[in-house]
């Protein structure tokens, strides 16, 4: 992993002239108290711009999931702030937060987590239905994204009738189709074999390049790390390295 740091061609601060999607300020997340206190994340300051393809790496227990959950509004920080599209998400609750996640964040989970009773197409449509997008527009976007993720012809299959890789493609399509500000993926390839994982990641990278979609994902897999354009390294809840590649 250190060789990646050495391959570092461009320091983070050099990047200019881009719009900020995420900004975290002194973000901390502690679990437990006293003897059992765990500093899952400590004073994380981070800025992610539109169109970036960022991976978060680090040993197990270093706080990767915690960071992604805080950014995604699934968890509340102990202290510090998360700004997504310049909005303080840590202060939102209930319906407001639900709607914000619906409109601004796309999630891809390690375990795919598709809705089992809905077909591939319906899973992809789900968020657009919540958003009240017209049937015509939905149909247009669904067929476009099915093409992009290479699942044409599998529209009506239920998740149980799809392979893991196919399910994760549906999950990518579901996360992207509502055109969120950012897509967060916690170890999206961990349940896939490495070939399928790399294929999925290449597909995500293509979508990132073609559609300027912002991705942040975490991984353990060195082959996956290589494909990132920016690597943020966590250790014991602290950001210890942050480098960009062109």
């Amino acid at each position, binding site marked *: 992993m250190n060789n990646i740091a050495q391959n570092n061609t461009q320091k983070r601060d050099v990047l200019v002239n881009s719009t900020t999607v995420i900004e975290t300020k002194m973000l901390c997340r502690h679990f437990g108290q006293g003897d059992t206190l765990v500093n899952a994340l400590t004073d994380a300051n981070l800025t992610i711009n539109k169109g970036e393809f960022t991976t978060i790496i680090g040993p197990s227990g270093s706080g990767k999931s915690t960071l992604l*959950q805080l950014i*995604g509004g*699934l*968890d509340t920080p102990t202290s510090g702030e998360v700004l997504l599209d310049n909005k303080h998400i840590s202060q939102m609750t*209930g*319906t407001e937060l*639900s*709607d914000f*996640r*619906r*409109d601004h964040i*796309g*999630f891809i*989970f390690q375990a795919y*987590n598709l*809705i*089992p*009773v*809905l077909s591939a197409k*319906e899973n992809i449509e*789900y*968020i657009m*239905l*919540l958003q009240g997008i017209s049937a015509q527009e939905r149909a247009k976007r669904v067929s476009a994204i099915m093409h992009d993720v290479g699942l044409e012809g599998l529209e009506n299959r239920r998740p149980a009738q799809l392979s893991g890789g196919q399910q994760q493609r549906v999950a990518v399509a*579901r996360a992207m189709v509502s055109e969120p500000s950012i897509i967060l993926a916690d170890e999206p390839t961990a349940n896939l074999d490495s070939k399928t994982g790399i294929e999925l990641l290449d597909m995500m990278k293509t979508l990132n390049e073609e559609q300027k979609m912002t991705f942040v994902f975490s991984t353990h897999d060195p082959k996956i790390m290589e494909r990132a354009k920016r690597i943020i390294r966590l250790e014991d809840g602290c950001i210890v390295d942050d480098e960009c590649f062109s």
Partner: protein
Amino acid sequence: MLIAKLAFRNILRNRRRSLLTLLSMGGGFFLLCLTLSMSEGSYSNIINIFTQDHTGHVQIHHTNYLERPSLYKTINNLDSILAEVEANPQVIGVTPRIYGPSLAYGKNKTFPAQVIGIDTKREALTTRLKSKVKQGQYISSDISKEGYFEAMIGYSLANNLALTVGDELVLISQGIDGSIANDIFLVKGIVGDANSYEKMNVYLSLPAMQQFLSMGQGENSQAHELAITLAHQQLAQPFAQTLQKQLEVSELTVAPWQVVESSFYNSMQADKKGSYVSMGIIIFIVSIGVLNTILMGTLERTREFGVLKAIGTRPLSLFNLIILESLILAVISCLFGLLLSLPVCYWLATSGIPMPEPIDMGGIVFDTMLGEVSWYVVIVPSVVVIASTLLVSFIPAIRAAQISPLKALQAT
């Protein structure tokens, strides 16, 4: 729409469990419906038999007559009131009665007796008196060749006075003009048995009674009571209210059988409460079963709710989803229960269950338990099943709505 689609698919997803829920809720409906049908049917039957025996569904008296009966508290303008009552399409029959407590004398013995003057034709159309004649014949207003009016006497009175059909009966009472009324009558028939309402009664035709008590006849006829039978016993209270307004005669009181026979009515109401307890138990058992399946169904899907929430489903939508799933199941269960119940209720209403031992209530014999088919019998179980299901779903629904997406996602 989206939520409805999800709800339907979720119900179809675990078919066995949905079927079990459906069976238990449908079974609950069936039991409730049957219990209600039997209790309503039995009460209707009792009320019908009771009211048709002599009370009728509604009675008209001079105000206060029921509290303190008196010879002088009469209903005047009898003909016009009869016509007015009869004009009502709900009325099956209306009959006037005159009451005169008397001393009855026959074959060396004297007994007090309630003498009732009846319009023989109308009485036969309104109550079952005619069918209760056990010996001889139902009276008419004819006068025998000896010049006597006919009388019909109760079974016990006949025994006490040692009278049979064809014998002479002497009645002594007070006329409305204060004179002593006494007359000889011909025993034409003996009515009822040792237990029935009529056992110590004497029935005379209206003209005979009027002459006996020196009351007005023909156009000037008066009566103490008008008994009315209606198409259905449930019409009694509303009908009594409307008629009271319609009559516009302040000295008359129109009362439904519930008031006239208030002690009978009250004991029946008390009895009804007993059946509420058994219905409550059915509801409780069904609800526990439903709560169990719904809770299991939602616990299993905790992770899924986490996903739905994480990707932007509002808490309220998740709440609605759970409630809707239960509601759909409840409605289908009701339809299923209805399908099961209707034929049985219909059979109960038409054939009924013969009682091993007939019950005798004040001389009125019940030998069949009858069911009833009515809106009440169907709607109450539906409302109860749907309401208890919704109530029971509240807990899992709130749980699902308030679930933290993160915790739910980490659930296995």
